[in-house]
């Protein structure tokens, strides 16, 4: 029996693409949006735009209320204790840059920042550049054969000079949940700050940031069925207090004269300039929509789709899977076939999958690969999408092998 998604019809984008002959299997790059989000986006502009946190007038008050309501919803979504622990940024990448700049003064030469070999460039480059600016050592945790961060090596590498650990919850290339609990414990035992990049993880299961007990958690709206232009930074209160302000302007200050200024604490002190108001409000609608779904049914559907994806990939023996994916996506290569050739022939057949280094160039280099093809799933995908993918894959391989 073919897998169907009861939520597919809620996503006009996936239906429009299907009508155009496009099968969208690139949700790890960005997700399609529910109608409820589109309504909120249009509704905000159509009923009268206004800036937030500034004006006393009615439209301004309404916009501010809706904007702040999303902060509450995001806090509930992540189980943060207080909405004031959620900072809106313009992307997850910006949130990580905020941390790297906001914490810069806390590091002294010789301190160590620990990341893992599978990090997305967004969780590599800000730390790499910080390390260069401050003469820090960037330590990279290796992976085991399944694509998990190797805990025994991590126990050796996380040491007394470790000041910060920044790792992904779920790899955007390997599709496996990382052993965060023991990793964070290793870092915390050394008194290091802990940063979790939840950009992929937040989409495929509810995260409880208090249970996770990380100092910072980062994710982006556009992968979570929300609009683009918004990232979320959660911080523990004591961790947020350690951040120096990094972007200046707008309403992020308490008082200024020409020579000096005092700034607000988080969150507003880290939201300089006019924020993406419509997008933040619309993210609230996406969270409401997701909250209205049967979470167990969504997880079961995603698990069944993923199992079907893996089983189909494993049946084709010329393919080699990267790591041992457990959810959301799978990346693979074919011996003797260039990933760009395969991607081209899939796209000729209306398949929207991703090929290349997936913004994790050092990871691919470490695996001895110039790139790989990645299929990634959203809750709106169904068994027919996968069938079209496998048919197209077989046709492409017939031409290339």
């Amino acid at each position, binding site marked *: 029996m073919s897998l169907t998604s009861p939520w597919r019809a809620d996503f006009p984008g996936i239906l429009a693409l299907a009508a155009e002959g496009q099968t969208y299997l690139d949700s790890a790059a960005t997700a399609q949006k529910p109608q409820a989000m589109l309504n909120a986006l249009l509704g905000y502009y159509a009923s009268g735009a206004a800036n937030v946190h500034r004006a006393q007038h009615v439209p301004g008050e309404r916009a501010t209320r809706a904007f702040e309501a999303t902060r509450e919803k995001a806090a509930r979504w992540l189980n943060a204790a207080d909405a004031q622990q959620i900072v809106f940024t313009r992307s997850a990448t910006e949130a990580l840059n905020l941390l790297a700049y906001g914490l810069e003064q806390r590091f002294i030469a010789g301190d160590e920042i620990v990341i893992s070999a599978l990090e997305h460039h967004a969780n590599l480059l800000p730390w790499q550049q910080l390390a260069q600016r401050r003469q820090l050592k960037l330590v990279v945790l290796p992976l085991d054969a399944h694509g998990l961060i190797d805990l025994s090596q991590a126990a050796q590498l996380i040491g007394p000079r470790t000041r910060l650990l920044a790792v992904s919850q779920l790899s955007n290339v390997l599709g496996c949940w990382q052993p965060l609990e023991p990793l964070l414990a290793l870092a915390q035992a050394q008194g290091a700050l802990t940063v979790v990049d939840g950009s992929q993880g937040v989409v495929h299961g509810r995260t409880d940031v208090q249970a996770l007990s990380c100092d910072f958690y980062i994710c982006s709206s556009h992968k979570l069925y929300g609009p683009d232009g918004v990232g979320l930074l959660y911080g523990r209160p004591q961790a947020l207090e350690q951040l120096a302000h990094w972007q200046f302007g707008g309403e992020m200050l308490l008082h200024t004269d020409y020579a000096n200024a005092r700034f607000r604490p988080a969150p507003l002190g880290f939201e300089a300039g006019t924020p993406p108001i419509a997008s933040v409000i619309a993210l609230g609608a996406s969270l409401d929509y997701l909250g209205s779904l049967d979470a167990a049914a969504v997880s079961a559907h995603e698990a069944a789709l993923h199992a079907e994806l893996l089983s189909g990939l494993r049946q084709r023996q010329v393919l080699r899977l990267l790591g041992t994916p457990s959810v959301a996506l799978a990346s693979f290569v074919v011996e003797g076939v260039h990933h*760009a050739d395969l991607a*081209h022939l899939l796209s000729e057949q209306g398949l929207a999958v991703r090929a290349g280094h997936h913004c994790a160039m050092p990871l691919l280099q470490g695996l001895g690969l110039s790139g790989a093809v990645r299929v990634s799933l959203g809750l709106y995908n169904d068994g027919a999408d996968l069938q079209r993918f496998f048919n197209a894959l077989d046709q492409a391989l017939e*031409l290339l092998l």
Partner: protein
Amino acid sequence: MSLPTAASEALQAFAACPSWDQRARLQMQWGERLEPLSAEQCCSEHLVAGCASQVWLLGQQHEGHWYFQASSDARLLRGLLALLLARVNGLSSEELAAADLLDWFSQLGLGRQLSPSRSNGLNAVLQRMRAVSLGERA
């Protein structure tokens, strides 16, 4: 301006292939026509930056006519390179500057492969070709 013989041949061949798989096959067959580059030629000096696949491009002028050589590790891109060389090899600097290469690929029905979101690198190859023909070191 009349097309080089190889280019006319390519146009006819692609026009006779309406389906995507026939065209892909044809594109790969054209790729086989590329004169192989030596190991020394596949060096960083000739590597075109900004491509997802590796692409090498060399060009020289002989008695006022341009002759380019190119290769890639991706087969379909090799085909595009062969089709590009079929269009430009033997042109003078003036003819090369005047050639509408985007239009050339559109005529072949391959225009989409030059779209800005494509990381196959053909756009970077065209830029490098222009730089080489203007005597710039890219």
